[in-house]
């Protein structure tokens, strides 16, 4: 059954902010097989002008995925039926250990295409002081 298009516009703010850990960044870099020292060695990161190590570009999925889950569950979408269609990140600043990040999730659109539902979910990530850190858009194909 097609999803109700009135889900478009629905929003959710993450209840618990995500605190970025130094070891989590390292673990993530290991899991994507990327040995870049900027993700592990503060001195290497400082050489690029950063105050500490930075997270890899796709790291935000660690917490944005979880932030969007309740909204998808509310829409009756089972995890195993989701196939990731598109993903885009727009970065305002790098992520560092110790960042405490909140997510504002919104359903930008819901449409039907070739028997599948296509959901576009946007997540705005902000630091504790309200500074915009990044925005992601995920297009999910519900099979």
């Amino acid at each position, binding site marked *: 059954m097609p999803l109700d298009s009135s889900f478009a516009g629905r929003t959710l703010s993450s209840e618990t902010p995500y605190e970025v850990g130094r070891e989590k960044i390292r673990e993530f870099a*290991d*899991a994507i097989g990327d040995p870049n020292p900027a993700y592990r060695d503060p001195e290497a990161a400082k050489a690029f002008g950063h105050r500490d190590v930075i997270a890899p570009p796709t790291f935000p999925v660690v917490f944005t995925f979880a932030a969007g889950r309740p909204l998808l569950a509310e829409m009756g979408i089972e995890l195993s039926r989701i196939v990731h269609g598109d993903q885009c*990140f727009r970065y305002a600043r790098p992520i560092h250990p110790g960042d405490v990040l909140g997510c504002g999730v919104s359903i930008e659109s819901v449409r039907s295409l070739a028997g599948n539902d296509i959901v576009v979910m946007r997540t705005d990530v902000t630091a504790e002081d309200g500074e915009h850190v990044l925005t992601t858009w995920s297009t999910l194909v519900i099979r």
Partner: protein
Amino acid sequence: MSQPLRVGAILPTRTYRVTRADLVRYAGVSGDLNPIHWSDRMATSIGLPGVIAHGMLTMAFAGRAVTDWVADPAAVEEYGVRFSKPVVVPDDDTGTEVTVDGVVKRELEDGRVQVDLTVRSGGVKVLGQARAIVRTS
């Protein structure tokens, strides 16, 4: 920057190998426990040929071609892909290969460039519209 920056500059080709063990590790670390990335039964039940790699893992491989090239990973201002074909990962010890090629497609204002990526697995393009906007100055 390993090459002079101009439209048409080619990024070094990158090849990554991905096995089921890599998918299990990525699932645990990323929190994406979708069973289509570890259960053939669940993957085939929605019409996939078998367990497929997390799109975000393939996206990370492709992104590395860019971050290695620019040196400072934070020079990437925008990065987007379309997951056009699944990366099927067989249940064996060798897994499958993902190959990433990139080219500077155009110059943008403020010393930024657009890098377009071509990402293949088993000779098939698995990502579409894979591009990064990168600050070069």
